[in-house]
């Protein structure tokens, strides 16, 4: 298995623990990742305010990857959503495809056909590697650890083009946690949006949504919240630091990227999974794997 890695904006700057742990896990599972060079933003932030800008940005990145030929993998829900959506339009809408190609050829001497599959790492792990092969590779059973998963919105919705898992109550992340031997804890606010997107528009909404989930998790005494999206991760980790500073609310719930959890189960040393970058330390876990 070989993929082109589309890095996106947030991860390579702020979540190096996500990038590193993904790299290590993929290496361990024998999946080759080749970084896409000369990329730009996937266009996701523009989908809501300028459809044309979004489609052009996404198509440019898709065209670059088509020249290399391998399917694309990304670690971000937003990038996956944006690129999958754009790719579907390019594949299915002849008129739009011709319009885009006229633009790409003229400006960048590139063209796009929609021939690649675009995947989030979760698609690769669940569909391509599969639970069984993951299970065969588990070296450390994580039995005894209790995780709360947060899947995020854009990896499952809109289902018309995301088409992965139940769009209202997704379950595949639970399976990916449980294959490591750990428990995926059920909780009321499990499918509640993280609120990151309200930042800069209505910060109160953003903080309230964040608190709803984290306060429930505090009572449930989980070992960590596990995410697969850089925006959700940032919201839950930085949001807790903000609550501590501004409102003296100390929740102290570690937030982990899923590949950090899987990496532990696959026997990758803690020092290679970027835990030094997690701002809220998962003490119990680090003790256990010292």
């Amino acid at each position, binding site marked *: 298995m070989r993929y082109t890695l589309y*890095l*996106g*904006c*947030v991860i*390579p*700057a*702020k979540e*190096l623990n996500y*990038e*590193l742990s993904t*790299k290590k896990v993929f290496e361990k599972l024998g999946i080759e990742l080749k*970084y896409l*060079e*000369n*990329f*730009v*933003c996937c266009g996701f*932030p*523009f*989908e*809501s*305010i*300028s*459809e*044309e*800008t979004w489609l*052009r*940005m996404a198509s*440019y990145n898709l065209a670059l990857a088509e020249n290399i030929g391998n399917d694309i993998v990304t670690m971000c829900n937003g990038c996956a959503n944006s690129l999958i959506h754009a790719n579907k339009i390019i594949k299915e809408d002849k008129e739009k495809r011709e319009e885009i190609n006229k*633009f790409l050829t003229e*400006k*960048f001497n590139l063209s796009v056909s929609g021939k690649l599959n675009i995947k989030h790492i979760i698609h690769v792990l669940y569909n391509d590697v599969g639970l069984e092969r993951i299970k065969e590779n588990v070296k450390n059973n994580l039995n005894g650890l209790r995780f709360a998963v947060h899947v995020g*919105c*854009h990896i499952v*919705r*809109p*289902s018309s083009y995301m088409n992965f898992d139940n*769009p*209202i109550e997704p379950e595949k992340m639970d399976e990916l946690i449980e294959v490591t031997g750990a428990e995926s804890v059920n909780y009321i606010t499990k499918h*509640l*949006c993280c*609120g*990151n*997107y*309200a*930042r*800069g*528009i*209505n910060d*109160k*909404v953003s903080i*309230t*949504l964040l608190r*709803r989930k984290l306060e429930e998790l505090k009572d449930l005494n989980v070992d960590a919240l596990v995410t697969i999206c850089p925006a959700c991760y940032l919201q839950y980790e930085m949001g807790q630091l903000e609550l501590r500073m501004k409102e003296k609310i100390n929740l102290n719930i570690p937030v982990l990227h899923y590949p950090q959890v899987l990496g532990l189960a696959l026997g990758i040393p803690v020092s290679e999974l*970027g835990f030094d970058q997690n701002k809220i330390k998962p003490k119990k876990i680090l003790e256990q794997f010292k």
Partner: protein
Amino acid sequence: MILSLKLEDELKKLNSTLCYQCGTCTGTCPVARVEERFNPRRIIDKIKLYGIDSVLNNEEIWYCVECFICMEKCPQNVKITEIFFKLYEEVIKRGIKKPRKYVGLVKAIYSTGVSTGAYGGKPEAFSGLILKKREKMGLPKPVVKEEVAKTIIESTGLNKILED
């Protein structure tokens, strides 16, 4: 007016007129749960009754977090989130409002190719500090082609949002 008619046609294609006001959207909306001023059902109703001009100046339309859950659950297949996107596009095209969040995003992506620097500080894709940290962790330097983003943003006129 002609502009509004064309947009209203587009909204019709997103099934705006099929809404029968059941309120599933508002009932399922995470924002409406914590912010009573936000009511997607009412916004769709206003569009149906009075046309889109009646909501474009509305501060609340920007409260949507784009989680798509209302769209997923709507029994009439009204593309609610996508209707909001059309409203945003129109507000920005007409220069009615320039939301701080989006100005920041456009500015960062326009000047650096990526959104990394969108939230505070000087727009910069990857600072020396980040690059050093990456190197230490054995991660390669990200290769971004910033001028591409500039060309694309100028090609659609979205850079106008940056003008005073």
